[in-house]
């Protein structure tokens, strides 16, 4: 009998905690990231940020060491790639003037002006998402530096993602490789428009809705379309086509995109001061 009473108490605690969790999830969904729970979340992060910053400085050599051990092969590959790039750069410096002229011409042709009129806020990546499912990074700039939710984040290579969370000192960026990320893009060559979905850290991103009649060439650049209800400004380079094929009986092509940005080495980024246009 006593055992039953004990089990009953355990079950009561379990049910209470499960119901509390479900209530928190429901409230979080209902408030859409603006209610009391979001204040709690932001406050918790804000309060923890100084300790986290100190710990980051303290533990980063440990993390770098183990990171290097587990990525030894990758480090070797990077070393080889960098040596090859140095050799290539030496050769290319001879042709630099012609190349620069050609680049300017191509940029004009493709109209890749890369949002020159927008003010930007430089920021540093201070943390990766402590999760195996979310692809986010934390930046060292927040609302105090005029960062707001929805602002695009870029590097010189192209689009990194969008700000999804802001506290006073920090902001969280949802990377374009996150499976929940979906943005409107345009193929530079054909000007065809499609939807690009994140596919995790290691996979190429599928580009949907590309017409089967469209000629898609490998290496063709993809830029933000600016049409997806104003979520992103137009013309931000996103990636290049790695493969394109038309499956039998399909209504759209299967196009895979490789991002321009190397997400494993994100360090310094720029937050574009851009206010998304709300949906009508």
């Amino acid at each position, binding site marked *: 009998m*006593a*055992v039953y*009473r*004990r089990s009953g*108490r*355990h079950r009561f*605690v*379990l049910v209470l*905690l*499960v119901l*509390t*969790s*479900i*209530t*928190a*999830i429901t*409230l*979080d*969904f209902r408030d859409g990231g603006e209610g009391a*729970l*979001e204040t*709690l*979340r932001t406050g*918790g*992060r804000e309060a*923890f940020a100084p*300790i*986290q910053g100190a*710990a*980051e400085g303290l*533990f*980063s050599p*440990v*993390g*770098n060491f*183990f*990171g290097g051990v*587990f*990525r030894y092969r990758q480090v070797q590959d990077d070393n080889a790639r960098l040596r090859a790039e140095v050799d290539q750069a030496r050769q290319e410096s001879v042709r630099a003037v012609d190349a620069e002229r050609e680049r300017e011409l191509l940029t004009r042709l493709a109209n890749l002006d890369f949002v020159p009129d927008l003010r930007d806020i430089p920021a540093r990546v201070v*943390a*990766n*998402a*402590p*999760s*195996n*499912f*979310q692809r*986010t990074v934390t930046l060292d700039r927040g609302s105090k530096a005029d960062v707001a939710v929805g602002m695009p984040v870029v590097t010189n290579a192209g689009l990194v993602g969008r700000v*999804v*969370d802001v506290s006073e000192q920090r902001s*969280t960026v*949802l990377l374009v490789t996150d*499976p*929940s990320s979906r943005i409107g893009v345009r193929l530079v060559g054909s000007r065809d428009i499609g939807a690009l979905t994140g596919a*995790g*850290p*290691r*996979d190429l991103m599928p580009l949907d809705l590309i017409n089967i009649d469209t000629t898609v060439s490998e290496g063709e650049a993809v830029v933000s379309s600016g049409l997806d209800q104003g979520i992103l400004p137009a013309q931000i380079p996103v990636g290049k086509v790695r493969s394109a094929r038309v499956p039998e009986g399909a209504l759209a092509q299967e196009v895979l995109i490789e991002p321009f940005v190397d997400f494993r080495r994100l360090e310094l980024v720029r937050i574009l001061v851009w206010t998304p246009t709300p949906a009508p």
Partner: protein
Amino acid sequence: MTSSSRFRVPLVLITCLLLHTTVLADIRIRDVMPDLMLLVAVAAGITGGPDRGARIGFASGMALDLFLSGPLGLSALVFTLVGYGMGAAHTGVLRPSWYLRSLAAMLGSAAGVVLYAIAGTMLGEPLVSLRLVPVVVIVALANAVMAPVVVRVVGWSLAGDVPDRLTGSIRV
């Protein structure tokens, strides 16, 4: 909870949260990091039984949720169930050996990751995919390696709090 565990449990949770969000977030094998906060829930179940497993699982999950951009409470829900489940599974095991603890941590962590992915998918986050397989395997193995230390630390934080399995039906 005794007065010493009231002090020690938050200390262990904050330290683990710091390690999880800083050093472990950078140690990735095939882009998968060990899940220390999930392991804390598992360890609480192993050392403290279902009641403490659920409570500490809830606390560790809620603390982690503050640092994620997903639904607040999802990790808390999953870790509560995992902590309770591990405690219930360990009821009656008086002194589990280190390899039994590691094995339990491995299975509990794998179950936790799968449960999180399923719950997340039900809430509209596309988490169930082929990538789930390496995530489950790597988290389970990494947590099994860390388990002997983490179980000991969590056990220390609960010291003075007599585990349910030792009290049995006497302490009700």
